[in-house]
């Protein structure tokens, strides 16, 4: 009996570690959001801190985040268009993004974006690799906004 108890504890610990290692895991809120980061450059801790800010500041939005987002990916930037759609870019000309499509530049500078049709939020990797409270705040605000986009998409999609 004692042996089985020990095995159960070990299994629970391994399961807990597994669920938490690559994700935000909050069993009390039945919330698990997978976090994808670059193997060498990424920092899940900074993303977890931003989610924690959302959880503390805005429980309603946090619930929406848990319900409508299942993955947060850290990428170099958000791309809202393909600059190569312009022949001049494919020809090697260095053309400012604003000339091509201002939305592409704005998306690249945005702290994050939501991919419609998915439950995925993309967060921009800090350009200089920096972190700190300002980054956490910026990401928390982005998560609040982007969780709303996902919620709106899926509620609208279900109609």
């Amino acid at each position, binding site marked *: 009996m004692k042996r089985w108890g020990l095995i159960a504890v070990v299994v629970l610990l391994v399961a807990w570690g597994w669920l938490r290692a690559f994700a935000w895991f909050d069993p009390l809120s039945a919330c698990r959001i997978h976090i*994808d980061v670059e193997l060498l450059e990424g920092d899940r801790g900074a993303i977890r801190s931003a989610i924690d800010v959302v959880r503390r500041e805005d429980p309603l939005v946090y619930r929406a985040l848990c319900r409508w987002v299942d993955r947060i*990916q850290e*990428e170099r930037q*958000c*791309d*809202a*268009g*393909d600059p*190569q*759609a312009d*022949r001049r870019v*494919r020809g090697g000309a260095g053309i400012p993004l604003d000339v091509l*499509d201002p*939305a592409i530049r*704005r*998306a690249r500078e*945005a702290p*994050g*974006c*939501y*991919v*419609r*049709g*998915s439950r*995925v939020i*993309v967060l921009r990797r800090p350009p200089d690799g920096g972190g700190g409270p300002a980054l956490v705040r910026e990401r928390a605000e982005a998560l609040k906004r*982007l969780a709303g*986009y996902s919620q709106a*998409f899926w509620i609208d*999609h279900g109609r």
Partner: protein
Amino acid sequence: MTRRRAVALGILAILVVLVARYFVWVDVGARCVIGIRPSLVGYDNSTVKRALETLRNGSPEDYRKVCVHVGSINPNPSCGGFGGGCFWHGQNARGRASIDVSTEHGLIWTVAIVVHETCHAIQSHEGRPPGFDYEDECYNEDHRIMRALVQFE
């Protein structure tokens, strides 16, 4: 049932689950089956599946085109470096095409590359004339889908 048979059935069941999980996209409702080749570069096939799922929900018309014109997706960077995709114009124009799609740059670009290479498959199936500018149309297609699906402000 003998023990040996039970073990064989168990192994078969595991194989079926693994193949279904990693190597094929099945959407019974849309009658859409697309093979996905094993990926050698670490990024497992779930990114391709996530891209197809995103298209299905976010742009059903593009998803339908993929189902009609694409039979298999190769996520390995066998062409176009790590960042892009490829369609081989020498393919049999009558069958559903095989396309190469890199998943290196995440979900948004994977979706865009699927749409771009599907556009080439459509060109091939429609027998576009020699000298036709194959790339212009398809770059515009991937640009369009990115603009439609990425919401940032």
